[in-house]
């Protein structure tokens, strides 16, 4: 089962490698990992997409909690939550493809953020499925470069993760 785990951790050098090392040392999956400081610069927030049986997910959250610098861990996927990922896509945009690319951008509510005579850079935000669908929808031969931020997530409503 796919899980989305959020971690509040001290913003210290080495914290990221402790988390990454934990996953590789114990053979856990990481599908994506994002990390950046929060509104409190002394804290970082990580969002980890992983998968495994209930027992493995239980171990993952326990092992993350066990790290000395970890302040809080929550499995966001246990309750209603939002997931967002950002993608920047550089595409070939010449001839009739130029108009088609613009149309697809509009359909997906994406934005063109860089334009040259021959290329566009398209910015698209959404959950993983939406980003995947956009890539599926356009001609793969026209994709020059794709960069995805990895998923970040937050609980819906009053569910709050704070130190």
């Amino acid at each position, binding site marked *: 089962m796919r899980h989305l785990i959020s971690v509040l951790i001290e913003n210290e050098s080495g914290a990221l490698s402790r988390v990454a090392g934990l996953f590789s*040392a114990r053979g856990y999956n990481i599908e994506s990992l994002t990390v950046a400081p929060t509104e409190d610069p002394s804290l970082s927030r990580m969002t980890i997409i992983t998968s495994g049986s209930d*027992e493995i997910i239980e171990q993952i959250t*326990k092992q993350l*909690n*066990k790290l*000395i610098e*970890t302040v809080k861990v929550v499995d966001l996927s246990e309750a209603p939550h939002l997931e967002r990922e950002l993608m920047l896509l550089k595409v070939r945009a010449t001839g009739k493809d130029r108009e088609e690319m613009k149309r697809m951008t509009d359909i997906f509510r994406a934005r063109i953020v860089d334009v040259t005579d021959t290329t566009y850079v398209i910015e698209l935000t959404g959950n993983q499925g939406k980003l995947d669908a956009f890539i599926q929808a356009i001609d793969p031969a026209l994709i020059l470069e794709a960069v995805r931020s990895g998923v970040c997530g937050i609980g819906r409503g009053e569910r709050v993760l704070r130190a």
Partner: protein
Amino acid sequence: MLLTGAEIVVQCLQRENVKYVFGYPGGAVLHIYDAFFQQDQIRHVLVRHEQAAVHAADGYARASGEVGVALVTSGPGATNAVTGIATAYGDSIPVVILSGQVPTAMIGQDAFQEVDTVGITRPCVKHNFLVKDVAELAETIKKAFHIARTGRPGPVLVDIPKDVSAAKCAFHYPETVSMRSYNPVVKGHQGQIRKAVKALREAKRPILYAGGGVILADAADELTALARRLGAPVTTTLMALGAYPASDRQFLGMPGMHGTYEANLALHHADVVLAVGARFDDRVIGSPEHFASEPRTIIHIDIDPSSISKRVKADLPIVGDVRHVLADFLRILDEEGLTAPRETLAPWWERIEQWRARRCLAYEQPADGPIKPQYVIDTLWKVTKGEAIVTSDVGQHQMWAAQYYRFDHPRRWLNSGGLGTMGVGLPYAMGARFARPDAPVVCVTGEASIQMCIQELSTCKQFRLPLKIVNLNNGYLGMVRQWQELFHGGRYSESYMDSLPDFAALARAYGHVGIRVDRPADLQPALERAFTEHANELVFLDVRIDPRENVYPMIQGGKGLTEMILSANDL
């Protein structure tokens, strides 16, 4: 007044009441050694290899219950220390390791004796720090000691660049530490504890299964009191020998791969298992699937939530310090007025006594035959009246020592159970002797293990440590040979050692007493001489034992608790 970083290190250690530091100097720690030279409150023990520095600090911690301290230089000093650190981590032993590092401006430039010590040790420490500013040094050392000794203990490394130990700063040692990210649970959940007490009272076939956590939490008294109140059988893992008196009738011996027949069958057939600071590891229960084939209620007390339901699902998890939780158990039993052991356990004890009647540890010592290793440990137990601190290395001799030396008290049995590190025995004995200068300290080892840290005989001479080394010399990597005999068709690949040294002569070359024992009749007199005539000297007893002897009972890796091999006849 401004102090250098090096002086701050020394001040911090003094404030932590550190009495001994085990270490080895080098370029990156010269300032710190200079500061040590100018004080006499802390004694520095100069080892002959950094691995032994950490092992000795670890052994000191195991024997005393206090935090052990090691000091090593950068680069090879730190990498040599890694085996020691991983060994302490494997058994959750509180050790603080101070390592020198190249100056901060040179970090990352592949400087002389530079390695990424924090990176290399990260997977085998409870936590580690690189101190980049002398202003943070004192607080970091305070945190290191706090983290090492609280919660589930473990090694903590502090990496100190040379310019940080040279820089000056005002010294202030914090009295307390507060970390928002680190607050180990001490007290157990009262509702869970009440449920657990009820389950134990209603059990028809209960067993107490205690692990190293009981020793680490100094909870042997509480465990013993609870066992007596419940009248239930007790098994203690390799790491918990001494947590319950081995001479008591309720003690079934050690469970697991080389555990007793009665302990393994009782653990398997119990209806309620109270696991206390134990972790159902592969050397104890073998296959988790086989273990799960029998229905039972598992109560699991551990200070580390990640140890609970890791290999075996717990029905009643209790997170907390085992000493506090066991005290709560006793208090609830008091409130409920349960004092005397109950008659309902009689049928359970009858079954256990039938298993015990198999006498799975029986052996015979022929008067003129080769010396049996079991006889050596038995005799050692008699000669030391069961009162020695015994350290071991890893292999057959370790199992024989665990099986035949009956430990009645905690912190008397020091060995590497988790990582299984050959070479720990001698440095553990050194650490134990500094922790308990009044106690007889014996290192039970083998001719292969002892050679992994034999250079420490030199340290023992320098510090006049009157250790007794009992070398069970069978000329083989015995446990490897045993597996090759049983599971690899008798193909003894690289398990025989040619050209062994004359150990007795080697011991004498280091300035100690060396005695070789070949015949059974010579064993007891030699051991007695070691503790009388040579009481104040290190004695190396090179005991030539039967090279074909195997450790039984045995459960093959991956098999279950009921699949024991009791002797060669079972094969």
